């Protein structure tokens, strides 16, 4: 086989277009089973939509998408990631949604010489001390959405805030990010068991503390449970709810319903964004999948577009790793988020907005943009990153 293809390769080096024959192999590792299975599907749908609109090509070469389920378990994720880079020869890995899975997966993938372009997980480790030439996060750094909300409440002069998050690293990252920007009084900081069902006790404590607002980070089912129960306790009107978009996006809003209306979320993208590419994306996504996309789907869409733009700028030759790295670092594409570029640690510099949950024309709860909180927001870890030279 090798011998037969050798002349083709030789030709390919002369003209980038001839690479069309050789597919770009992308491993899409995410959580598809169990209670978090919705997340993986959301990411995959966004990614696939971008690929479909691009003739299922990246940088002019056809795409071979290898899908894998990490079951939200780091060791399973590592096994599947190893399969992707070794057996399927994946050149790029994306899709990972849990930080702990990313921590287990990154080393074997990077050691095998593949790129990681995260469409979701934004662990602080890879933004700081462990930053890597071949690791990019097209999504966000975990703390940033919380920093934005902290900044907003600080600027607005809200005096007393109560904090709630699950007891796991992302929960701690989110509250740490909030406290980095918010200098008012924290009247309570509560970490609940991951996957907790009933929040009546915590809500009673909130009422007793009587803060001016509650900042909470509860993704997935936890968010659904918490917001519904908070509303039923009659607290939403007297003590407003603030969260990052992950607590109040379209992965949970349909399940929360009216109980979420009036809550506020900080977001780098919302389904009501007013730019042409974003409007088209939302319309296309709804037409294809019959639901409103979440920021997760939007970032996955952006990730595919970003990969395409970077690969295209070097004529599809992603095998030239230093060139592909440089192309990614300087990538120019029409992000759904409007303003987007990579910082020196390969994490995004992007804008953050305050959104309010309102009902759209069809009565469905959506995030409506109210104001811009911060332009060109950078994460707090970039200073710890000494990016090694390209290789």
């Amino acid at each position: 086989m090798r011998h037969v293809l050798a002349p083709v390769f030789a030709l390919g080096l002369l003209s980038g277009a001839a690479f069309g024959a050789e597919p770009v192999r992308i491993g899409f590792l995410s959580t598809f089973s169990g209670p978090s299975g919705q997340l993986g599907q959301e990411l995959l749908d966004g990614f696939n939509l971008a690929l479909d609109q691009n003739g299922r090509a990246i940088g002019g070469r056809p795409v071979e998408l290898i899908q894998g389920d990490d079951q939200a378990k780091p060791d399973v994720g590592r096994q599947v990631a190893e399969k992707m880079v070794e057996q399927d020869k994946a050149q790029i890995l994306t899709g990972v949604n849990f930080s702990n899975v990313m921590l287990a997966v990154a080393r074997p993938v990077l050691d095998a010489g593949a790129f990681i372009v995260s469409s979701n997980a934004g662990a602080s480790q890879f933004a700081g001390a462990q930053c890597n030439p071949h690791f990019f996060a097209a999504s966000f750094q975990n703390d940033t959405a919380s920093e934005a909300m902290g900044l907003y409440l600080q600027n607005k002069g809200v005096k007393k805030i109560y904090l709630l998050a699950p007891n796991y690293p992302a929960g701690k990252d989110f509250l740490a990010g909030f406290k980095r920007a918010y200098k008012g009084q924290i009247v309570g900081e509560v970490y609940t068991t991951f996957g907790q069902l009933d929040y009546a006790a915590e809500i009673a404590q909130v009422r007793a503390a009587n803060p001016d607002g509650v900042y909470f980070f509860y993704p997935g089912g936890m968010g659904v449970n918490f917001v519904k129960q908070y509303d039923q306790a009659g607290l939403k009107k007297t003590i407003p709810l603030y969260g990052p978009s992950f607590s109040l996006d379209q992965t949970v809003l349909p399940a929360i319903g009216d109980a979420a209306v009036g809550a506020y979320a900080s977001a780098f993208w919302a389904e009501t964004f007013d730019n042409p590419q974003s409007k088209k994306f939302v319309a296309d996504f709804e037409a294809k999948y019959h639901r409103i996309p979440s920021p997760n789907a939007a970032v996955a869409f952006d990730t595919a577009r970003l990969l395409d733009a970077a690969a295209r700028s070097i004529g599809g030759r992603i095998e030239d790793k230093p060139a592909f790295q440089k192309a990614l670092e300087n990538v120019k594409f029409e992000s759904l988020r409007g303003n987007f570029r990579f910082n020196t640690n390969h994490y995004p510099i992007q804008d953050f907005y305050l959104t309010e949950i309102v009902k759209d024309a069809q009565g469905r709860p959506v995030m409506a943009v109210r104001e811009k909180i911060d332009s060109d927001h950078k994460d707090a870890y970039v200073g710890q990153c000494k990016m090694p030279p390209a290789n």
Partner: protein
Amino acid sequence: MADNPPHPVRWRDALPPAILIATLAATPLVATAIGDPFLVKVATRVVIFSIAAVALNFVLGFGGLVSLCHAGLFGVGGYVVGVLAWHDFNAEPVWIFHGTSNLAISLPLAAMTSGLAAAAVGAISLRTSGPYFLMITLAFNQMLYYGAIALQKYGGEDGLQIMSDVSLGPFDVSNRYRFFYLALVVLSATLLLTGRFVRSRFGVALRAAAQNETRAIAVGIDPWVYRLVAFVISGALVGVAGALLAAGQQFVSPVDMSWDRSGDLVVMAVLGGIGVVWGPALGAAVFIVLELVLSSWTSHWQLAFGLLVVLIVVTLRGGLADLGRALAGARRMEAARG
């Protein structure tokens, strides 16, 4: 059964595990031949979970004790290796000792620590029996799990990356082929050891207590003591499996200790067949390969996996080992009877 004398190993009983080990031992050769080194990683995972499932089955199949805390003990072993390697990498002593990435030290320590944890859990849990035992061990599993999450210094829920290369004495075993054979040696030793135990006076007493407790007590066997010893041996072995997983993956996390992982180990054992020492190893192999293959086909793989589990329980009462024995031994049995 209770009055069965200890009996020597018959070659026919030793044949299936020998075939199993030989097949596994040949995997790296096949992997090299077809140019797919990933197979070695799969085989390593199969071997490690085989050790864990065989260890669990020592109390499950022969002691009649359904334990749901084996993932916790598995994780204890993993954390011993991970924490020692962390201290080695960060050059920070553990109390007065240096950390180490040498498995010649950390594997025995992992076995000891898991064994001690098993002794503590067992001493309390073995006061109960049946479904109550199942649930009290689940409770201890959750305590170990939350304990690992509380280890903020070692990554908490994020888990712990092993940054240094692991060795065994003077040998570097970070190479996947060497590591695979190391794990395979441990599996072989585990099969031999548990096989010996099951056939010994100790094993006979353990099984007698599982089958008819009243009669066992009547002939002077204190079931609690036998079960505790078995539980400690089983816990130490499963800790070794956890240590190997951590060393092989260079990563350990609390998710390795979640109760559904305990459930997975039980499923592997029952799937393979709990009546024979090697059954769970077969179950682990089938479980891991199926999970990998099915999940690469479809994101709805758990539907097929669930139905397959149901089908196997409905049709094969002795697990897959029955199928293997039926295929291998049918003709011989016919001949013997005829």
